[in-house]
């Protein structure tokens, strides 16, 4: 029997803390021998300045759709993948909290790791989310490095 194709997906734009446990549970699959995960956490400084907290703003409806598109592209590029979960925080996020999660399950580690890595790169290039770093003496909108969209 052929069980190829993603059967487990979970996408979330969340105003509340993200749960890696929940993401891993969402992609767990009896056919998977690997679950690769990435968690992005908020740094406490930028070029020596102390960050007090961060504010993320999303174009909500487009962001949710974009997460789904990233999952679909992962399924196209790595057909063995069995599950994809992607979640991103919005609103005020304290230093050290998790702002983004990617979890990918697959029969073997190579495709799980590759797909997870591609997923976070892609997210950083295209997800319509904006980040403001708030310092004690000001604030700045922080743009991602323009590395181009991964193929």
């Amino acid at each position, binding site marked *: 029997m052929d069980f190829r194709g993603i059967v487990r997906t979970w996408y979330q734009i969340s105003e509340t803390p993200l749960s890696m446990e929940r993401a891993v549970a969402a992609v767990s699959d009896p056919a998977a021998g690997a679950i690769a995960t990435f968690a992005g956490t908020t740094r406490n400084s930028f070029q020596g300045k102390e960050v007090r907290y961060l504010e993320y703003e999303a174009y909500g409806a487009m962001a949710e759709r974009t997460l789904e598109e990233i999952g679909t592209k992962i399924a196209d590029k790595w057909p063995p993948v069995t599950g994809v979960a992607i979640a991103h925080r919005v609103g005020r996020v304290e230093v050290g909290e998790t702002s983004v999660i990617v979890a990918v399950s697959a029969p073997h580690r190579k495709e799980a790791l590759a797909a997870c890595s591609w997923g976070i790169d892609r997210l950083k290039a295209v997800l319509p989310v904006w980040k403001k770093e708030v310092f004690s003496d000001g604030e700045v909108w922080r*743009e991602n490095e*323009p590395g181009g969209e991964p193929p």
Partner: protein
Amino acid sequence: MTRWTVRLFGPAREAIGTDRTEVDVGEPATAAAVVEAVAARHPEIADLLPRSRVAVEREYVDPEARLRPGDEIAILPPVGGG
């Protein structure tokens, strides 16, 4: 001329002080023409617009994309997710 409502996000929204603006654009109504009209109306984001992208109906479009009445149009400054 047709009037278009344009949604604004992140630094563009903050610089203008509102999350949507309206502009009048003649034919052909393209994404680029809307950006040009927004730049003329809001010079405070003129430097941000060349680095911004346009989404129509929640999808990125090319500058030459034609707009249809009722389309949801958004200007998306360089993103910072992750």
